[in-house]
Each structure stands twice: as structure tokens, then as C-alpha cells.
């Protein structure tokens, strides 16, 4: 009888411990990722970056520099959405892709308001004086915009990712926009 009780208890403990957690790993940006209407999800950044990288590489604009690879500097990004955004969720993906393509490298010692992404590299650069008058061939700037509408219980959010690549003359030599629209319904009961 005692053995039977112990077995049942162990089985119950095993079952309970197995059911206790619903956390699991999923592939980032896959169809198993959580989707919300009023927020930019990680898959939205991924999809926007994918579209921008494809567009920028296909344009061939990065090859129009006298001494490839092109040097890129990151300029201002305006966030006109309702949430706080770390622009590197989009920009870093673009930088990595361009770097791996061999078409462009990013200057990490030059930023808005004399702020360097890598201060130590800036000191090294000052010591070595390697720039030789070529700070950047292009600057990358952009804007994130959110448009939200409601109709009955249906909510819709559109996130626009707008990017511009300007050359040393101040001309936007490449521009593109990716819009991501999501719809969902509010529960009829609840807050």
C-alpha cells in the first residue's frame, strides 16, 4: 500500500513539474513569435530590415564610390511612434548585412553631437590620423511612424519605416519605405 502511495506521489510530482512551465524557445521572427497590434514586434524589425537591405543592395548605389567599400555614417532617426525604440533593432541589422556584403563599412567614430559610438576607436583614429579627409561617403537617416485606427472592436496599427541614404552633396541617393500593418480585435469583455 505504501509502495503504491509513493509511486502515485512520484508520478503526480513528475506530472506537475512537467506542466509547471509553458516557456519555450522559438526561432526569432518565425511564425511562432508573439504578434501584438499596438507594438512593433521583433519580426516587424526583421521584415523591415530585410526589405531595406534588399532594396539598398539591389540599387547598386553603394558601388558608386571611387574607393570601395563605401563608408557609412549613422545620422538622425526620428521616432514618431507611441513606443520607445532602440534604432539598432533595425539599423544594426542593415549595418551587419552591408558589412558582410563587402559593399559598405560603418564609421563608428562619428556621430551626431560629436558623440562617437566607439570612443576608444575615435582616440585611435585621432592618433593614427587615418581618415585623410574621407569621413563618410553616405549618411543613413530615417523616421519611424505609427498610424492607429479603431473601428468597433477592430484595431489596426501601421508602422512605417522610412530610410534615406544621403551623399556628401546632401542628396538622398537612395530612399525606401516599408509599411507593416497589423489588425486585431479587442476582447468583448474586460479592460
Amino acid at each position: 500500500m505504501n509502495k503504491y502511495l509513493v509511486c502515485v506521489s512520484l508520478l503526480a510530482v513528475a506530472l506537475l513539474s512537467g506542466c509547471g512551465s509553458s516557456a519555450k524557445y522559438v526561432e526569432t521572427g518565425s511564425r511562432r513569435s508573439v504578434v501584438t497590434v499596438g507594438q512593433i514586434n521583433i519580426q516587424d524589425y526583421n521584415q523591415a530590415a530585410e526589405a531595406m537591405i534588399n532594396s539598398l543592395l539591389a540599387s547598386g548605389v553603394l558601388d558608386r564610390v571611387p574607393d570601395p567599400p563605401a563608408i557609412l555614417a549613422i545620422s538622425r532617426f526620428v521616432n514618431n511612434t507611441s513606443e520607445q525604440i532602440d534604432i539598432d533593432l533595425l539599423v544594426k541589422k542593415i549595418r551587419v548585412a552591408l558589412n558582410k556584403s563587402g559593399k559598405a563599412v560603418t564609421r563608428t567614430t562619428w556621430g551626431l553631437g560629436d558623440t562617437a559610438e566607439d570612443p576608444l576607436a575615435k582616440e585611435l583614429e585621432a592618433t593614427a590620423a587615418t581618415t585623410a579627409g574621407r569621413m563618410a561617403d553616405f549618411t543613413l537617416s530615417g523616421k519611424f511612424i505609427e498610424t492607429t485606427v479603431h473601428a468597433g472592436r477592430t484595431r489596426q496599427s501601421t508602422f512605417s519605416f522610412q530610410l534615406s541614404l544621403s551623399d556628401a552633396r546632401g542628396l538622398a541617393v537612395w530612399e525606401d519605405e516599408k509599411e507593416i500593418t497589423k489588425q486585431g480585435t479587442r476582447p468583448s469583455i474586460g479592460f
Partner: protein
Amino acid sequence: MKNNFCCRLSDGIGGLNVINHVKLLSMALLAAGLLAGCHTGSVNTVERAEPVARRQLIVDKRISHDPFLKQKLGIVAVNQATTPAGLLQIQVEILNRTSSYMRFNYQFEWFDANGMRVSTPASTWVTTQLEGGESKFLTGVAPTPACQDFRLKLIKSIN
């Protein structure tokens, strides 16, 4: 007595017929309403009868593990080009064979001359939609000039 019983019986049968008709009519109206709600219309297109552009079509190999997706989502053609920067560009034309709206995910993978997969942030799952009867072009640009081959993955969306 017998007549009364017959009258009541016939009234009863007549009543049942009326109820059946009402039920049938209601069901027909409901079905019509549901069908009207489900059928949102398919896409009609018009284009040049003899296109000027000549696509460089490639011979493709298709492996399907989802017969339902294969039945609904047709791959019309695959063509390739080279960008001004010398990167391989692939365009896959897909067609929604149904009359219903459908959503699916796709991802391009890229391989170098040795068949090794080239990792890039641009290789991510993308969600897209098709109206009934609509065709769309999925375009991928190779992340490096070293990329020689590609693979397109398609999967039904759950969101």
C-alpha cells in the same frame, strides 16, 4: 368525430409543412449570408498580351511536405537576374489558386559556390498575404557576390 380527427391531423401536417418551409428558408438565408460573408472576391488582372520583358527563367526543384499549401499556393515561375552591384537576384512568382484570402510566410536562404549557407540578417521569415486568385512576386537579393544558389521556404502562417 372521424372528420374532426382528420381535420386536426391535416392541420397538424400543414403546420409541420409550414414549419419545415420556414426552417428551410431560414437555413438557405443563413447559408447565403455566410457564403456572402466568406467570399470576399478574387483579383482580376490585365496586362500586355505579349510582354516586352523577357524573364530569365530557371529550372527549379520543388519539395513539398504540406500538400494543402502546395494545392493552394502555386509557384508560377522562378527567374533570376544580376543587380548592378553583381549580386544574384531571384524572383519567384506565386499564385493563390483559391478564391479565399490567404496568409503565409516565406524565407530566402543563400548558398555560396561550395554549397555553404551564407548567414545574413536579411534572411528572415517574412509574412505576406494574397487575395483570392492574386499572384505576387517574392524577391530576394543575395547578401554577397559570393552567393550562387538559393532556397525559398514557404509555410502557412498561424498569425
